[in-house]
């Protein structure tokens, strides 16, 4: 896997040939702005349906192993 990845990254250096100093990055395919939503409540998903699909659940919540070596 690693050799395939480094091979790809080598290939991708072809863009180094381009002079991109004055080029604006393109982040949006279609120029939209100000897409907003009214502050109106919609019903929640059903908790049982959702927790029924969870790998582990208890007392209405999702259960996970302890966060040893992990911090808040």
């Amino acid at each position, binding site marked *: 896997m690693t050799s395939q990845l480094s091979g790809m990254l080598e290939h991708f250096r072809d863009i180094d040939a381009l002079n991109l100093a004055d080029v604006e990055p393109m*982040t*949006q395919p279609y120029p*939209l*702005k*100000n*897409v*907003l*939503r*009214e*502050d*109106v*409540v*919609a019903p*929640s*998903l059903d*908790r049982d349906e*959702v*927790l029924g699909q969870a790998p582990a659940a*208890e*007392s*209405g*919540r*999702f*259960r*996970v*192993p*302890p*966060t*040893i070596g*992990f*911090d*808040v």
Partner: protein
Amino acid sequence: MSEVSALPNGWQLIVGLEVHVELATKTKMFSASANRFGDEPNTNIDPVTLGLPGALPVLNQHAIELAMRIGLALNCKVQPCTFHRKNYFYPDLPKAYQITQYDHPLNVDGHLMLPGDVRIGIERAHLEEDTGKSTHFGGSSGRIHGSDYSLLDYNRAGVPLVEIVSRPDIRTSEQARQYVAELRSILLAVGASDAKMEEGSMRCDVNVSVHKPGTPFGTRCEIKNVNSIRSVGRAIDYESRRQVDLIESGGTIRQETRHWDDSTGRTETLRTKEDADDYRYFLEPDLVPLVPDPAWIEAVRAALPVLPAARRKALAELCGVDKDGESAIVVVERGQDDYVRAVIAAGGDARRAVIYVQQAFAEQGVTPKVPAKDLAALTILERDAKVTSTQAKTLLTDLIESGGGDVVAMAAKRGFEALDTGALEAMVDAAIAAEPGAWQKYCAGEEKALGALVGAIMKSSKGKADGKAATAILQSKRSK
């Protein structure tokens, strides 16, 4: 700005605060689930909140409105902005990234004034979403390490947040506490948040470093889990001493995040910079730029209420008190300054009005039951020496208990009348004659002897004498 620091050996404290505020919207930042504290776990959830496959975010218009109110109230510039993804793994982060603002935040370059005209810069106040809540079970300390499992509630996930980042302009723990208190009162005044630290709708992270003036700022540590205004002060005091002691004993400060433990009064290492994630920030492709219309910004600015600092200043000027003093702060905080104005408009003595309200109206709320004209009348009675200040205090209590009334009649009913000066002089002479020993001691400089003399006056006048006035007469007689 040059407050003397409480640190020894010329060390100076540098503090910056990052305050996260939950906005008082009906729905979440990016989806229409309810934004409500205290509901049953996982009952305000939707595909976006849970980070389900296929879910997409849509910005809450009212959250933007409230965020602009905060920015404008903090004198920020409101500008076109974008959203970024901050990527890291944690179970309370449902998408494994937080949508936040990075290089183009909504509000920048503001400031907040503290008492004494101390100016604290605000670098930015940007929008982001809150995480879910994880509760840990098992393990003896109830803290993270060594617990058996965690349970996750996503009701809070997606709640709109504004993160307010100060510049490192704070120099004392007192200033830090004032900053948080003032910020809180501004948030309440503009209706952006209920800012309850005890419920987590306002959370403070404190950045502390120390240095000697003239040298570069020291390495800073970030302190988390500071859950009250008092803790802000205590944590800073502890951490700054810890850093000074460490440096003076030859150690170096490691840049790290520390956890404040309120019960032990100490900070402890949480994680070091080397462990910090690379968040791989990139522009959020599921959202589009937010370019607030100048007309919208102006409308928000125009609709802002008079802010607490301006209200304190106006009240102080009106009443002849210090704008940073206790009465101005307390009365405005309670929202009772308009009431004081009403008392003054009804002919009341301004200075007495604000002091009475500060001292006795803690339970009264924004619209006190005592009619303004009644309180005004009481201030006039005291001003005109028709009652003593002690008597006035009693009448004040009566007024509050009965919810108002004719103070002149109430004073008469109690048999209150202040003695005029002539009668008081006569009583003083009589007391001197009755207590010659005490008088001699007092003239010799024994201040304690005053008590016996004043006591005699109060007794013979059946409490009608004004103790302060009697003391003044005794003092002037002694100095003759």
